[in-house]
């Protein structure tokens, strides 16, 4: 294997791990807000 393979596998995985975390953060926040909205709507119906 050429050194470039090891270098880009390392940098690639680092970039991927950070990208996955950023997406997960956005999804979690959106889910939290949606849950609050749903609970509020349910209470309003009651």
């Amino acid at each position, binding site marked *: *294997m050429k*050194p*470039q393979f*090891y*270098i880009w*596998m*390392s*940098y690639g*995985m*680092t970039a991927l*791990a*950070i990208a996955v*975390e*950023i997406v*997960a*953060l956005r999804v*979690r*926040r959106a*889910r*939290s*807000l*949606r*849950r*609050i*909205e749903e*609970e*509020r709507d349910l209470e309003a119906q009651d």
Partner: protein
Amino acid sequence: MKIAWFYFASPSTFYRLAGWLAPWFFALAAILGAAGLYIGLFVAPTDAQQGEVYRIIFVHVPASWMSMFIYFVMACYGGISLTFNTRLAAMMARALAPTGAMFTFVALWTGSFWGRPTWGTYWVWDARITSELVLLFLYFGFLALANAFEDPRRGDRAAALLALIGLVNLPIIYFSVVWWNTLHQGASVKFTGTTMQIEMLWGMLLVALSFWMYSIGASLTRVRAIILEREGRTLWARALAT
């Protein structure tokens, strides 16, 4: 100037403060990361012994430092939450854990891809690498324990206790290359000085600062979601979901 710590310890106040601060930390992380990677990939010279493959250190070493530093900060927050029974400290400990686990994984992964061309193997049960793997399991244990209880406050206390016990692993990781005869090389950067070439050092330090800023930004963003999950029934949180 006197800072009103208890004012900022309120989840509703901290939610707004974190929302204001997080983008600045992400921006700083991007700028420092770009500068560090530019120096590391284009300015720093080729290593005389390892050739080009040494450039992995520009992500491997900062990720390893962050994996230990985040654990230390997480355990401190855990200790504060246990001692003073503060909700926000427990939430911060929870917010830091996934980022710490991510950096530990990156440190192990990049270490493997450095080990193969330099040592001839992706993995070896060496004291430094094994203790870093234990750190990853400690992060997983923290996250599993924190989410194992229906009452989040009980989960906070159990996980904080585990975080404090796991602190013993940090000096083991750091001094493993001194205490045992390891395949992993000793530290090139110490508090007393460095044996590295100056461009290599700058590249590595800038990426380390970038990862630090990113970790603060990510934990502030995550703690906002945790605050919403826990304070969802309060009026101020409901006002946000419009």
